[in-house]
């Protein structure tokens, strides 16, 4: 793990809300994290936990309205991405930061050829000619392991299988040699054998290209295999953040712990009955006043209902947003 490297991306106190008829939904609440050069940060969370919204907020990809970024600072490349002009931000998007989305079926434009779609950022960000861009597109397709790349440049997305399409998405994201790659559930829509292919490809590319990656997923298994550090999100907040080994071996937040238990193992001992987290994930309407996990938490305390936990450092690079770890609460309880 490339510890000590400088952060390429530093996010502080990000807050994003959606205005809806039901009220303001606080989708991202005071999220802070950083990403160091060359590392892979895993972001785990269920749907609605705010993980995708966080990443889209960084690059201004949310539709505004209804979304609105209330606060925060996103330092990248010496500038605050939340403050730069639209044109500057566009240079970053696709140029210095690549993005891969969950559903390769719908994320590619169905009416443009794959070659065109890969060449687009090349021409825009690298100023390549049509010909250069085509050559580079072919290289990229080869890089992501699409056989017969030259011929397939002219094919349309629907002519590719799901796995191949996700490779195309990766090729697009990698086109301009980004410093950071944000992968939003890139394998969720894929079969396990294809997922294995993509995971292996990512590892390979990371070694080859040395970029930093943020990998969003709900699958702890995937995270276990590839991440350096893990950030667990719940209800729009980061509830736990730790190096990968530490997180799996020593989960501090009740949510993380429960999540790890609910997943049946493919090879370990088969439990007679699955552990269950009762209840449903919340939707945070209005500014949070309590711990979002409170209602489902087995260890909930009265104070959880009245205090918003902040992230408490509990070890080297390991923090958790649980009042159980709050020195103050611990002191009170003690």
């Amino acid at each position, binding site marked *: 793990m490339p510890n000590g490297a400088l952060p390429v991306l530093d996010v502080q106190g990000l807050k994003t809300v959606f205005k809806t008829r039901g009220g303001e939904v606080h989708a991202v609440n005071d999220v802070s994290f950083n990403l160091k050069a060359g590392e892979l940060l895993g972001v785990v969370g269920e749907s609605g936990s705010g993980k995708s919204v966080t990443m889209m907020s960084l690059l201004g990809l949310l539709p505004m309205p209804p979304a609105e970024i209330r606060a925060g600072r996103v330092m990248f490349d010496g500038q605050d991405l939340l403050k730069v002009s639209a044109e500057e931000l566009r240079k970053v998007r696709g140029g210095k930061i690549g993005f891969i989305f969950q559903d390769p079926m719908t994320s590619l434009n169905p009416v443009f050829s794959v070659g065109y779609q890969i060449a687009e950022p090349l021409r*825009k960000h690298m100023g390549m000619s049509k010909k250069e861009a085509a050559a580079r597109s072919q290289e990229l397709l080869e890089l992501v392991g699409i056989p017969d790349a030259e011929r397939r440049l002219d094919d349309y997305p629907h*002519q590719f299988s799901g796995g191949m399409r996700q490779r195309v998405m990766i090729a697009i994201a990698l086109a301009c040699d980004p410093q950071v790659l944000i992968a939003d559930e890139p394998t969720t829509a894929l079969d396990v054998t294809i997922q294995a292919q993509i995971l292996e490809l990512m590892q390979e590319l990371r070694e080859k290209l040395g970029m930093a990656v943020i990998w969003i997923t709900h699958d702890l298994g995937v995270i276990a295999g590839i991440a350096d550090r893990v950030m667990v999100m719940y209800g729009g907040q980061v509830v736990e953040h730790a190096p990968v080994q530490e997180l799996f071996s020593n989960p501090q937040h009740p949510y993380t712990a429960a999540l790890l238990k609910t997943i049946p193992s493919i090879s370990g001992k088969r439990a007679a009955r699955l552990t269950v987290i009762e209840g449903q994930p919340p939707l945070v309407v209005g500014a949070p006043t309590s711990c979002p996990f409170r209602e489902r938490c087995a260890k909930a305390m009265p104070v959880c209902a009245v205090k918003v936990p902040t992230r408490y450092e509990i070890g080297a690079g390991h923090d958790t947003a649980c009042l159980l770890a709050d020195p103050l609460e611990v002191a009170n309880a003690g």
Partner: protein
Amino acid sequence: MLTFTLRRLLMSIPTLLFIAFVIFMLLELAPGDPMSQMPLTIPPEVKEKMRLALGLGEPWWVRFPLWLKQFFIVEPQYWWDAAFGTNFADGAQRIISFQSRSPVFDTIAQRLPQTLWVVGMSYIVGVLIALPIGIISAYKQYSVFDQTGTFVSMIGFSVPPFFSGVLLIVIFSVQLKWLPSIYDTTHVVTNWDTFIFQLKQMIMPVMVLALQTTAQVSRYMRASMLDNLTQDYVRTARAKGMTESVVVMKHVLRNSMIPVVTVIALGIPSIFGGAIITEQIFKVNGLGQLLIIALQGNDIPMVMTITFLLAVLIVLMNLIADILYGVLDPRIRYD
């Protein structure tokens, strides 16, 4: 795609024959008589003779196959003869109008330029106005522009042309005397001045008709754009750092045009017959006016031929719309 086209063409043959039969029977059953426009001073027995001379003495099962033969065999022969100087037709009877006693196709050919110039131009103008309105309305949904565009296009949709047309005439021809109220079908554009005149006499009918096209097409365009603006690939394009103009005008527009282009194609048949009222008001004697006069005069061969050509056009445009769909949308392959 080729087999799809072939298959649809083959299937359209029985459909068209059936349509021809239904139209024929409709006209046959319809009341009215080609002699109705003759003055009452012409005695009935003379009218009866005239009627017989038109071939109306024969029963329908003789006249319908005769029309089919004339339409599908004799007329193409004449065209062939005219183009290559051959003599296949050999003086066979063409489809003759009851009113003018001239070949129906000659009259239709004579009317086509007006129809294409005015009604066709209005369609093009209408579409050209509609597309940007639809695009901007969708992109800035619920903005002032969107609301205004919606309002204007709906007014256009709801005002009958016999009102808007006359209103324009009263304002621009009678009061201001800027534009002619009567369209000169014999006008030939040879130089700048004649071109300006042509423009002047076209502008009112074109605008009245275009307003209606605009109203409809811009609605479709807006809806289609709205559908596509929320698609995942738009996010991808933005994530690639594309400018908004590229995102909207290239990625979204290209996808949004797929259904709209087919709607536009499906609207084409109406160009040729749907402008009846506007043509009448501005005296643009195009195909619509020809059809209505023929209908009023019970000119069965003329009505039959025009409506059947329209039916062919409708069936053909349906096919073309489907093919266009396949061409524009690479996901669709009809094989």
